[in-house]
């Protein structure tokens, strides 16, 4: 069974002052299997951020279902939402969203502390992750004392320390230089190799080329998808950029 299933997802925004309705998502259907690494691509305004917010339970759809392990997350009560987010989802944001008043270790611990875990257990979980991400030396530093790439690695550590079912990444390479981008994407690959499911929203072709599957979204619909299959990174990159050109020039929907 698929880990994540999105069915007939629709989101309509009504602007505050006029009665104009804006359709952000018109009819989105897709599913993600356990251990998959999915990238969602699209231009600005295509609805990808709306989609991610709904997947993250930060926003409610107008209609449709999002099933995680067969459970509809769009109908979770307000009370349980925070809890749900902590236990099942991990987040990596474009602007890192680290708290400056905690040192890096405490930033990583934050979701565990919120889940009321005991300190010895937190420490036990931290050690292997820190080694894997190569951030042993910066744990006692503060977020404002380290580089963007290091910040994003701390953020990744924070996302995976809860062993989430799904990691949601929103433009994770958006604020990084090319070297840090390379390192982070490599890291995502390693994490994914350990059977960690990742859904990443991006408009970087390079970032998307690391994914095992790329979904293209346009005008609130899934427009196209590409499986990586046996393609190497360069072939995948070429394939994605062709599709993007097609999208930009107004290609027709094809099944």
């Amino acid at each position, binding site marked *: 069974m698929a880990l994540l299933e999105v069915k007939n997802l629709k989101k309509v925004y009504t602007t505050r002052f006029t009665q104009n309705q804006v359709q952000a998502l018109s009819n989105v259907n897709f599913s993600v299997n356990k251990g998959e690494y999915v990238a969602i691509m699209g231009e600005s305004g295509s609805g990808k951020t709306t989609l991610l917010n709904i997947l993250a339970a930060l926003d409610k759809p107008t209609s449709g279902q999002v099933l995680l392990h067969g459970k509809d997350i769009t109908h979770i009560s307000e009370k349980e939402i925070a*809890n749900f987010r*902590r236990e099942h989802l991990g987040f990596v944001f474009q602007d890192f969203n680290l708290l400056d008043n905690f040192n890096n270790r405490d930033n990583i611990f934050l979701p565990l502390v*919120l889940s009321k875990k005991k300190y010895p257990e937190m420490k036990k979980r931290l050690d292997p992750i820190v080694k894997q991400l190569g951030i042993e030396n910066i744990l006692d530093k503060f977020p404002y004392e380290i580089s963007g790439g290091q910040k994003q690695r701390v953020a990744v550590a924070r996302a995976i320390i809860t062993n989430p079912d799904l990691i949601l990444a929103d433009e994770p390479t958006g604020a990084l230089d090319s070297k840090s981008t390379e390192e982070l994407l490599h890291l995502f690959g390693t994490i994914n190799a350990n059977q960690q499911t990742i859904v990443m929203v991006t408009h970087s072709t390079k970032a998307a080329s690391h994914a095992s599957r790329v979904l293209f979204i346009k005008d609130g619909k899934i427009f196209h998808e590409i499986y990586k299959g046996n393609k190497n990174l360069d072939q995948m990159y070429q394939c994605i950029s062709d599709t993007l050109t097609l999208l930009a020039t107004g290609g027709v929907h094809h099944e």
Partner: protein
Amino acid sequence: MSRAFYLNLAVDNLKKNARTIIPYILTSVLTTMMLYMVVSLATNPHLDEIVGGASIKQLLGFGIVIIEIFAFIFLFYTHSFLIKRRQKEFALFSILGMEKKHLARVLFYETLITLLVSLILGIGLGILLDKAMFLIIAKMIGADIVLGFYFSFFGMRQCVLVIGLIYVLIYFYSMIRIHISSPIELLHSDHMGEKEPKAKWFLSIIGILCLGIGYYLSISTKNPLSALYVFFVAVVLVIIGTYLLFTSISVTFLKLMKKNKNYYYKTNHFISISGMMYRMKQNAVGLANICILSTMVLVMLSTTLSMWTSIDRVVDSQYPRDFIGTGYGEASNIDFDEMSEELIRMGIVPKNFLAYKRLHYAGYLKNGTLITDYQNEGMNAVNEIQEFYCLPLKDIQDYENMKGSLKPNEIYVYSNVEKVKEKTLSLFGKEYVVKKQLDHLKMDENNPNVTEHYYIIVDSEKTLERMQQDQLNVYDDNASTIYASYLFDCDANDRRVIEKLTQNGNINNFIWTNKSDQKQGLIELYAGILFIGIFLSFLFIMATILIMYYKQITEGYEDKDRFEIMQKVGLEQSDVKKAIHSQVLTVFFMPLLVAGLHVCFAYPMIEKLLHLLFVSDAWLYVRTTAMCFVAFALVYIVIYVLTSKVYYGIVKRNV
């Protein structure tokens, strides 16, 4: 660019920053108003016409200086806060191509507008309330009310000069601030990482020592005379201690809590400890200011109120009878019975009459011997000194209801501290047998316990005279003489009685005073003190409100981002609210609690200082302080509710 442009921009800026500027203007207006009122009252010619108005005027003159000093501090402090908040705005202007001289112009108009508003509204309100204040004072001292409108030109001039000067200084200060900073720096000043504060062990220990010693001094002081001097030392120590408590001790304490991993990594501890640490770093000085101001308000209000409400008691303790006549030197050789007859002849019928001769000297009793040579004993003269009141038994036998008689070498002894252990006392080289120790002495009931003192009751006036001679041999020029006191109540009109007494030559050698005159004098003095106490308290409370308001706003903006991130990571809404609540509550009520603690520890010392002013009812002071504290806490809670609404408004926008 035209002048109108700058003016418009200035008005626009003021409107845009209404949330922070309006409270500032309000403070400015109220400060101006208070300054006007005090100056106007101090120079009001009607006050001269009231009996005792002059002494109130003198006190108010002193009050003017204090209010001016505080007006300067408060306005400057709050304005520096405003400028800090607006750095980003200035940076934006400069990036958009405004030169510093243009900014200076905009700022000039802004300052001018604020100044004009403060002066016009402040003086206007002042004129309106001035009359009311005048009526209140007149009522307090029980004077006839003079109607009529009074406008103080002098008050207006003083306000324009003082407030104007403060604004000029404020303007120059903001100019300096803008000049020394570069736009890029200004623009990013918000995003500079805040360093985590370090635990300052050394300063924490000094702080604890300061507070400890300050408190100890207050508790341990026995002698009110030395209390005055110790009081200032203790106040300075506690002020230093308070600053260190908020700046260092708090951070060190939080650091210690953070070290305990099992304690620290609990949801509510985790968020609040780290949050508090940064809050303390940024707000420590502000909180310490609030705490000290609150303590000042509480102490000032409760002491002045205690003094005011105990006027009757104070007068009673000094004047057990309506009239008191005292004769010194030659005049003390009078025969009291003749004096009574003389009074009756004059048409005055003395009632409850009490008359005695008394010898009053100082020394120090050690092992039953009166020590008169302080230098050789090498002791703190003021601290150890004791007073001795010697009276003949005959004069007070009836009043004190004492039976029995004494031989020339026998005495009764009463002390307000401890009983004498020895069987005999050696006074100026003569031995006296202590026949009895008295448990209670009516005469001493109203004596404020300023010093340790002894009453020595001797058999007769003759023995008293002999003792005076002995004293003269020892103390020489410093020796005191016997004086005679004649106290009585009387039905007839007080004024006429005292006139008669002073007319008669025979009795004229006595100095006559009456209770009602004394009372009026005290009322005038205390009314002045109370008035200034209330005025300053009002000023301090206003400053407190303002500081807290600004704190809440700044913190609101800073906390907003933090709580947003935490929510994204999975902090529950209810936890957000709880965390915000507990932090705001702690930060808000800590100064009040510490102020309460200060007031409690100040109690022993203030009680003794009040003794000096003849306020001997300790319980009255406790009640007054408790009342003031409750009233102040209520004001504080109201401020809390109002300002935290603003705070939640900012934080909750995305919560």
